């Protein structure tokens, strides 16, 4: 079980990275995160929407209403220029943390 603080901290970079591939909507974002983490990163579904709204207010992403193949209304989100910059920053920070942690772990086994 991943700690909820870590899940919360990873929400923004993951959403940015997913939206960098293509525009998407809440349900699909959650499903993709679940699939990519083999179900280990399990968000409370509703919590994604406040995150998306905050990111939209901050100008990182934009949204538009569209329709699914079955005609159901959907709100699609896509990345803005500031979102790409934020994603690069997140990537840099997470890579740094990963690097430090991996380095320390390697030293333990030497």
């Amino acid at each position, binding site marked *: 079980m991943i700690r909820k603080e870590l899940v919360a901290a990873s929400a923004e970079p993951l959403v940015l990275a997913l939206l960098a591939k293509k525009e998407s909507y*809440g*349900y699909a974002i959650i499903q993709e995160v679940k699939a990519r983490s083999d179900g280990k990163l399990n968000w409370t579904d*509703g*919590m994604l*929407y*406040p995150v998306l709204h905050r990111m939209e207010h901050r100008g990182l992403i934009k949204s538009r209403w569209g329709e699914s193949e079955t005609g159901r209304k959907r709100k699609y989100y896509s990345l803005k220029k500031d979102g790409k910059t934020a994603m690069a920053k997140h990537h840099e920070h997470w890579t740094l943390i990963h690097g430090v942690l991996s380095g320390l772990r390697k030293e333990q086994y030497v």
Partner: protein
Amino acid sequence: MFDLEQAIADWRSQMLAAGIQTPVPLEELEIHLREEIEQSMKLGLSVRNAFQISAQQIGQPKMLNGEFKKSERTFMKIGIGIIGMLIGAALVVPGSIQLHDELVVANGKLALLLLGLGLVGWSFDMFRQIIWPEASRRKLEKVKMPLPKQILKVGAGAIVLLTGLAFMMPAAALAGQDGMMRFADLCYLIFGIALLMVGAVVTFCPYKKRAA
């Protein structure tokens, strides 16, 4: 017989009761709930179970509302910032016009001018909190200073504080006598107030650094 539409209507009422009253989040959550129910039913769950599991997966209404409120606070700050900016500008105008035309400002207008400038500064800080929120999130940490440095800090702060008073007092005294203030004196007053504030902070506040 389980009525899915009624169950969704009840779920909506619970969300509304918890405070999620803006239409967009609620509509988005309902669309999500319906998609989740549909997928669960495709996997073989009964309508009732699909609804119960999906509603649970979306989360508790109160918890969700708390998260949405965080976004709404940003809008509130923008609104307060704009109102503060407008009121501040309105307070600054009479004194500025008199200063521009006569190079003096009456005491009443001076008070409004200073209040207006303060309000404009405070509004700028509201916008700063939105544009650069990290600045206020980073905690200030006390830094322990050796005694000689502490004495130096308090001494330097006191000198700045007294210099501020020296700039302020004559201007304030003249304003008290004449009921108005000349432009040059106003500059001294504002400069004096700024020095006074910096001096007070340096003298009385412990040395702190922003945490990285």
